[in-house]
């Protein structure tokens, strides 16, 4: 008489089933899909027959290789690898599984099916971790995303490789059980494994290029202060050696530190991209400066399985594109939509994946192809060449640039002068300006992210400022979008000055930073 093997579906896991010739067990785990973790149910069937190991369920190479890791880990932990016909199914069958994090669940299900481990708590607790051949657990990518997914699904706890348990413990509403080696599954199953304490992140502004060393460039310093205070996109145009890269690095040091929600997002992205943050250290705003030869998928995200690009790695931080005109056309055009949406969407057969990418853009470019700039006698570019060069600034990027500043080679005289203000002093102002934005906007948006039409209401232009804006609109030929940008920047300038209304001086200063139309 054959008892029916009970079907295991979804996330429900019931331990072992006996029948004459098959034993069925399951464990729960996750696979990463973009920035999200999707639940995977690992079902293992151990049947009589010639020893074999079949793994099904759209597994990628790393997952398929888990057979070798599991085999060695089991033996080296003192377990037996069953010499039976083993079938491992990763459900749901139409979801691509990637990454070695499924090792632990596969091993667990196998141990339960071969009667070497009691299911116990593993009914309710998903587990994730890569197995070393010695049976020790290696860290997983996306531990936080997995813990959050587990919490959303209602699990009381998640078992994670102990090296990743700090990251997982950032999640709210779920206990994290650190698993150091395969043998720890016994304690986990019995419910005696000690949970990890909740991790709390601390944040700080970046250290780095000393802004005080940006000498002889008062206009540039002012521009980066405004950009930092409102998270405005900034374009620096200048010849080689005029300090553009230094300015970008200096800008990163005067942006206010991450807020707690932002810090969690940064931790999540960092975990998913395989470079988790160290919770013992303060979390800094990301700073990404990809070289202009980067491919479009590496910049934006893509590949199979979909991986996060530089845009996502810069999430909540700063993306610096040096030599903007040298980036490939596909890269620049491909940035258009993600920048507008704040998300990268990668479409695949198995469904589309989203990565977040809300960042501050700083770009640097030469004034013309030869790099000297038309005011220099060494410039040999014809006006047509200059025009063609400048028109490479893709339309969408131009829309994200609220501030444009031209720099020249700083004079020798000025370079010899005293240092300017240090980062700490400027940071005090930009942080205060940011606080005002937070008080004003219930959603906590930066001025640069205000939707079109909203900026005006928030700005509270004084009557004189309105008049000036009108006059400028006519005589300077402002487009509608330029109008919006000027108001947003003026609001930030007013925030830096600490006034409730935007005054005419704030507005005229904002106008001086507008990006000029391409000639």
């Amino acid at each position, binding site marked *: 008489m054959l008892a029916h093997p009970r079907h295991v579906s979804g996330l429900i896991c019931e331990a072992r089933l006996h029948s004459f010739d098959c034993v069925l067990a399951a464990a729960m785990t996750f696979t990463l899909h973009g920035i999200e973790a999707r639940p995977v149910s690992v079902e293992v069937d151990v049947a009589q027959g010639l020893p074999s190991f079949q793994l099904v369920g759209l597994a990628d190479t790393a997952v398929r290789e888990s057979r070798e890791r599991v085999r060695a880990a089991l033996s080296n932990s003192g377990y037996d690898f069953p010499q039976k016909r083993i079938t491992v199914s990763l459900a749901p069958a139409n979801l691509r599984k990637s990454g070695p994090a499924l090792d632990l669940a596969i091993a667990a299900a196998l141990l339960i099916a071969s009667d070497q481990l009691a299911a116990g708590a593993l009914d309710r607790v998903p587990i994730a971790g890569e197995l070393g051949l010695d049976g020790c657990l290696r860290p997983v990518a996306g531990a936080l995303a997995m813990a959050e997914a587990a919490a959303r699904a209602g699990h009381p706890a998640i078992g994670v490789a102990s090296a990743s348990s700090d990251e997982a413990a950032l999640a709210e509403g779920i206990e994290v059980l650190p698993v150091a080696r395969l043998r720890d599954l016994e304690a986990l199953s019995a419910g005696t494994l000690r949970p990890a304490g909740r991790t709390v992140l601390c944040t700080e502004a970046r250290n780095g290029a000393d802004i005080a060393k940006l000498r002889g460039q008062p*206009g540039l310093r002012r521009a980066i202060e405004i950009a930092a205070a409102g998270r405005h996109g900034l374009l620096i145009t200048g010849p080689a050696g005029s300090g553009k890269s230094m300015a970008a690095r200096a800008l990163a040091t005067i942006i206010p530190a991450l807020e707690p929600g932002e810090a969690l997002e940064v931790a999540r992205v960092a975990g998913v991209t395989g470079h988790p943050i160290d919770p013992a250290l303060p979390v800094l705003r990301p700073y990404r400066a990809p070289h202009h030869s980067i491919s479009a998928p590496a910049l934006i995200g893509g590949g199979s399985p979909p991986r996060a690009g530089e845009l996502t790695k810069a999430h909540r931080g700063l993306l610096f594109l040096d030599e903007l005109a040298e980036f490939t056309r596909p890269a620049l055009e491909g940035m258009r939509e993600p920048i507008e949406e704040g998300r990268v969407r990668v479409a695949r057969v198995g469904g589309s994946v989203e990565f977040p990418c809300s960042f501050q853009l700083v770009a640097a470019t030469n004034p013309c192809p030869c790099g000297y700039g*038309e*005011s220099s006698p060494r410039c040999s570019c014809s006006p047509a060449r200059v025009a063609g060069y400048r028109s490479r600034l893709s339309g969408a990027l131009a829309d994200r640039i609220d501030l444009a500043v031209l720099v*020249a080679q700083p004079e020798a005289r000025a370079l010899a002068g005293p240092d300017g203000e240090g980062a700490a002093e400027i940071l005090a102002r930009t942080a205060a300006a940011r606080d005002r934005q937070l008080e004003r906007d219930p959603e906590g948006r930066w001025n640069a992210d205000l939707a079109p039409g909203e900026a005006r209401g928030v700005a509270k232009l004084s009557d*004189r400022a309105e008049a000036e804006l009108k006059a400028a609109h006519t005589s300077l030929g402002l487009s509608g979008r330029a109008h919006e940008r000027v108001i947003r920047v003026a609001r930030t300038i007013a925030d830096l000055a600490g006034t409730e209304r935007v005054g005419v001086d704030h507005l*005229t200063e904002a*106008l001086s930073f507008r990006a000029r139309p391409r000639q």
Partner: protein
Amino acid sequence: MSAAWSLPRGGSGFPASLEDLGAECPAAIYGRGSQALVEGLAPDGCVAIVGGRRATPYALDVARTIAAELTDAGMTVISGMAFGVDGSAHRGAIDLRAPTVAVLAGGPERPSPLGQRQIYRAILANEGAVISENAEGTEPFAHLFPARNRIMAALAGMTVVVEAASRSGSLITARQAAALGREVGAVPGQVGVARSAGSNALLADGACVVRDATDVLDAMLGPGVAVRRQAETLEPGTESLIEALEDGIGDLDGLAIATGLEPPALASLLTRMEVTGRVALTPGGCYALCRRG
């Protein structure tokens, strides 16, 4: 609400230009708002901008623009606070949050017509003045209006009729201005249209053609004087900025170092100069002075 005051003829503050009316000179000027403004009125600093009540959008726009530009050039705009051109003229000054003077037929304590109360309040809020030769409490009877017009004509060095039909009261103001030896100007209007028949007729009779504030200033002060006057009221720092631009410095940093101005003030100044056309950006992105045409 501002307090009432009066300037009797013969007293120290009475505007001297009104004496030109001779026997027709008012016995006193009653007013609300800035007494000092009215005491300081002199013909070469005042322009009367008048016109019809049922004005075309074109006329309203021209009145407002010219009034604003003249105010910006340091002139005081005078008008009658009526609907139409008068109201627009006052608005041009109010746009710049600058003082303007309204001359009423009735007493100055309340807006007349009542529908112009917003402008009345704005005039007083911007340190302007509302005056009349009739004491507070006088009803604005129709027969008082032609008399009111002579006061505007006398106070101003030039009367500009923006748009008037053949029987418009603003033509009375123009006639009286001419009789006093003041300049008279008119804005060209559409031919064949009744609303501008009066102002066009003034042009045919020899009034100055007024296309913009410069025409007014040239007529009043002589050509070129206005430009020089504007140069005198330059903002601080402009001189050194112009020098630096002439030296070929075109980037914000270089200009900041050369002028010693702080970047915010420098940026605001550069923007204002861009708006007035004094400065523009080269294709390479540097600031440069514009050749004055």
